[in-house]
Structure formats: structure tokens, C-alpha cells
């Protein structure tokens, strides 16, 4: 109604570093899930992906918190303040513990896996699943409990984060397995069965992910003033390229078509393309959610 004559500039609180952190923990949680399919749930055909999955999960989760430390203004102080002065009401407090427990458990799980000790591998694998869910789910809670932003403050946020994590993790595993089989094995031949299996899982997870986005937006468009504004900002405004094109079209819809149509799935080239597109799309999703979710000034 009125024309703004004077207002001060507001700092962006959570930026790209947090997006990358969320992205990497998501990839880590996703690859950990894949590694537990054979040892934890007895799906033998996914066994060739297990060792690779756990190594990737540990490496990524060592890398991910570095981005957090870069974001925090006092990184060394934060390392011990988070444990000594913890606030049980804050989602970040729980994250500090999860970021220690989950890599530790993954390392122990990996050691038993490389020693071919099935009993203990299964034990630590099954402990690891709730930890992996928590370590990525809590990042959704961080945003959802930032109550000022309507875009974040939804009960769907942790679930959206979990599904996007699994989706991007599986895409990464598909790419890595293909590269390994093609270039670093004696036979130089890609294991068709495991790639097909992962692609099918990816397809169904993408269906759920798209459904969650639909739920989120259909409700956001009917919510209060700020919710409507931010939904328009994402769908038609400056974020439209990031949200509609990168995240959903390139990141989810096209890969979904490729992995769900058997003819297209048979082409390794298209599968690689789908996996790369999906990984790019999920990275865009992290940036859209973290940066775009708070881009609109509130008052």
C-alpha cells in the first residue's frame, strides 16, 4: 500500500555455507542408508555398494561440519560451548551430539564390515539408521524451529529433508558405482542388477519427494500473508528459476521420467545424466530452502 521511503538493510543470517552443509550431510545419510541395505536388511544384491557407501558416508560427514565451522563466527569456541552450555530447547544442541555419534558409529560399522563380521555389522548398521535419519532430520528441525519464516516453519520440513537426502545419496551412489565398475575393476563391466535396483528405489523416493513438495506448496499458498508472499516468490518471483526449473524440473521430474521408463533406464548415458541432474537439483533445493526461505524481509 505504502511506498517505503526509508528502511534499514537486514543481514542474511544463514547463507550458502549452511546450504552446502545440509547438502553434504544429506549425501552422507543417503549413502549410509544404501550401505545398510545388504548388511542390515539382508538385500544381498546391494552388497557391492555397502563398503563404498560407508566409506563415502564417513568421508562426507567429516567434510560437512567444516562448512558449519566456517559459518560460525567463533568456530573453536563453538566446539566446546555446544557441549558445556547446551540448551535442551535448541535443535543445534542435539546436532552437536549427532555430528559426533553418527560418524563414530559409522566408522565402527565400517570396520566390522571390512572384517566381514556380519553379526556386528548388522548391529551397528541398525543403530546407524536412526542416527543417519536423525543427523539429517535435525537439519530440517533447525529450519522448522526458525519460527519467524513461514517457509521453514512447517512440520513437513524434517521429512522433506530426509527424502531429499536419500534421493541425492542414491544418485551419488549410482554415479560412483558406475565409475568404479567401469574404470576400476578387472572386468570393466557395470553391474546392471544393482544399478537397476538403485534406480527403481530412486524413482519411488522421487515420487514421494515431489508429493511432499506439492503438499507443502498447496498448503503454503492458502496460509497467511507471509506464507503466500514467499510461495509466490518461489513460484513466480526471483527464486522461480532455482525452485521450479533447477530443483523440480531438472532435479526431480526429468530424472523421475528417466528412471521410471524402462526404455530410458536401459541407457547408461541417460542414467548418468539423471543422477547428475538430480544431484544438482538437490543442491539447488538446499540453497532455495535455506537462502530463499529467508530472503524476504519480514516487516
Amino acid at each position, binding site marked *: *500500500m*505504502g*511506498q*517505503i*521511503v*526509508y*528502511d*534499514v*538493510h*537486514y*543481514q*542474511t*543470517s*544463514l*547463507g*550458502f555455507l549452511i546450504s552446502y552443509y545440509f547438502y553434504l550431510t544429506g549425501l552422507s545419510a543417503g549413502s549410509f542408508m544404501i550401505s545398510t541395505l545388504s548388511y542390515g536388511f539382508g538385500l544381498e544384491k546391494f552388497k557391492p555398494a555397502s563398503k563404498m557407501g560407508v566409506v563415502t558416508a564417513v568421508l562426507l560427514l567429516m567434510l560437512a561440519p567444516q562448512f558449519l565451522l566456517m*559459518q*560460525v*563466527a*567463533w*568456530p573453536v*569456541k*563453538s566446539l566446546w*560451548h*555446544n557441549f558445556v*552450555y*547446551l*540448551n535442551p*530447547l*535448541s*535443535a*543445534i*544442541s542435539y546436532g*552437536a551430539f549427532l555430528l559426533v555419534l553418527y560418524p563414530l558409529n559409522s566408522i565402527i560399522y565400517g570396520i566390522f564390515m571390512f572384517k566381514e563380521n556380519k553379526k556386528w555389522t548388522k548391529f551397528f548398521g541398525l543403530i546407524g539408521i536412526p542416527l543417519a535419519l536423525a543427523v539429517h532430520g535435525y537439519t530440517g528441525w*533447525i529450519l522448522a*524451529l*526458525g*519460527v*519467524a*519464516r513461514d517457509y521453514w516453519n512447517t512440520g513437513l520440513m524434517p521429512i522433506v529433508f530426509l527424502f531429499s537426502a536419500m534421493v541425492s545419496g542414491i544418485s551419488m551412489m549410482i554415479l560412483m558405482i558406475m565409475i568404479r565398475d567401469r574404470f576400476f575393476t578387472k572386468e570393466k563391466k557395470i553391474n546392471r542388477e544393482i544399478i537397476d535396483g538403485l534406480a527403481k528405489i530412486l524413482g519411488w523416493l522421487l515420487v514421494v519427494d515431489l508429493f511432499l513438495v506439492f503438499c507443502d506448496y498447496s498448503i503454503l499458498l492458502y496460509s497467511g*500473508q*507471509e506464507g503466500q*508472499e514467499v510461495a509466490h*516468490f518461489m513460484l513466480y*518471483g*526471483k527464486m522461480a528459476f532455482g525452485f521450479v526449473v533447477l530443483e523440480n524440473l531438472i532435479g526431480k521430474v526429468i530424472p523421475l521420467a528417466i528412471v521410471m521408463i524402462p526404455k530410458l533406464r536401459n541407457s547408461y548415458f541417460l542414467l548418468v545424466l539423471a543422477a547428475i541432474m538430480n544431484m544438482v537439483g538437490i543442491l539447488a533445493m538446499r540453497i532455495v530452502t535455506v*537462502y530463499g526461505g*529467508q*530472503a*524476504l*524481509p*519480514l*516487516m
Partner: protein
Amino acid sequence: MSNSHETAHTKNKHLPRWGMVIDLNKCIGCHTCEITCKEQNDVPLGIWRSWVKEIEKGQYPNVVRSFRPTLCNHCDDPVCVKVCPVHASFRREDGIVMVDPHLCVGCRYCMSACPYEVRYLHPQKGILDKCDFCHFRVDKGLKPACVEACPTSARVFGDLHDADSEVSQLVARKPVQTLKADMGTEPHVYYIGLDQATMEIKREVELVWDK
């Protein structure tokens, strides 16, 4: 105000509950409060603890300006205190919400959770900072700098637990409103005659990649 803190406090008569009333019928939009605050608290360039948002309505020659002086609302149930992972954001017994510079690690979670966007990261200190009602002045019996400097006495500061204080009288007698009361934060900065247009969200926004 049926907070458990509140009832405990009302029993103890000597414990104040600081609050502010801003009468916009008196506000002339001179930005003195903004400047005084920067000077008093040594707020670096580019950030503000307290500022005046200015809106223009209508078309020339029929134009009207409305103002919204903004500062920390010193909520009874502050989101920033709830989400702070290291207890650096805290609420004093007298209602002033502050940041402990020794505890804060600068994670900026409180900044993204505050519905009023009054927090900023201090560029030199690397900690979160915000309006603290000039607590060092209040503790010595003085008024906050912005209240002291306001030329039209639009800002009134005082003890809301004392029924005879000017703020209590204004809150009791005038039609007052708080910002975003629907957030459930129970703010303690009251406005008289606040224009709806000054509270609308901005649609035009500059993103990182626009620059």
C-alpha cells in the same frame, strides 16, 4: 500476560518489568533515536539496533508519511532465547533480553528465528548483538538513550509492574498494539497509532546474485 515468570514477579514488588510505549501520534520521523542509539552503543556502519521505518502513502499533493520506530521487543517468551544452542541469549529477571558476549559463538540461529529481525552479527566482535534497552543506563536509574533523545517524547520507558508509572498508565488507558502478537512471543514494546502500512512485508528484494 499469564506467564509463570510474570506472576512470580508481581509478588515481588521491587522487581521491575521494563517496557516501552511509542506514541506515533507524537513521532515526527526525525531519526534522532536511531542516531543516538548508534552513538551510545557504538553500533558499526551498516547495522542498526533501533531504526525508523518510513512509509509514504498517497499521491502528490495528497501524501502522508507514517513511521515505525523499531527495536528489540524484549519479549516474555523470546524465540531467540529458546533457539540459542549455548544459552548466550537470555532474558533478565526484569524482562530485558540480552546476549552474553562470552557465551555467544556467532551461529546466527537466533537471527533467523527472530520474527522482528532486530538482531545482527557484530562485524568486529563476531557475536550477535541487539538492542538491550541500554541496560547499563537503566541499571543506574537512567532512561535508554533513544528515550532520552526523543524530541517529542514519543518514546516512553518505564516499569510495567508499577501501576502508577507512565508506561503502565498509557498501556492501561490508550488503545495500544504490539508487533506480531500472533507469534506468541509477548512483546513489551507497545505502539499507539501504528499504521498497518508500515508492517507490510517487502516484495522487492535484492538477492546475492543480483549484485
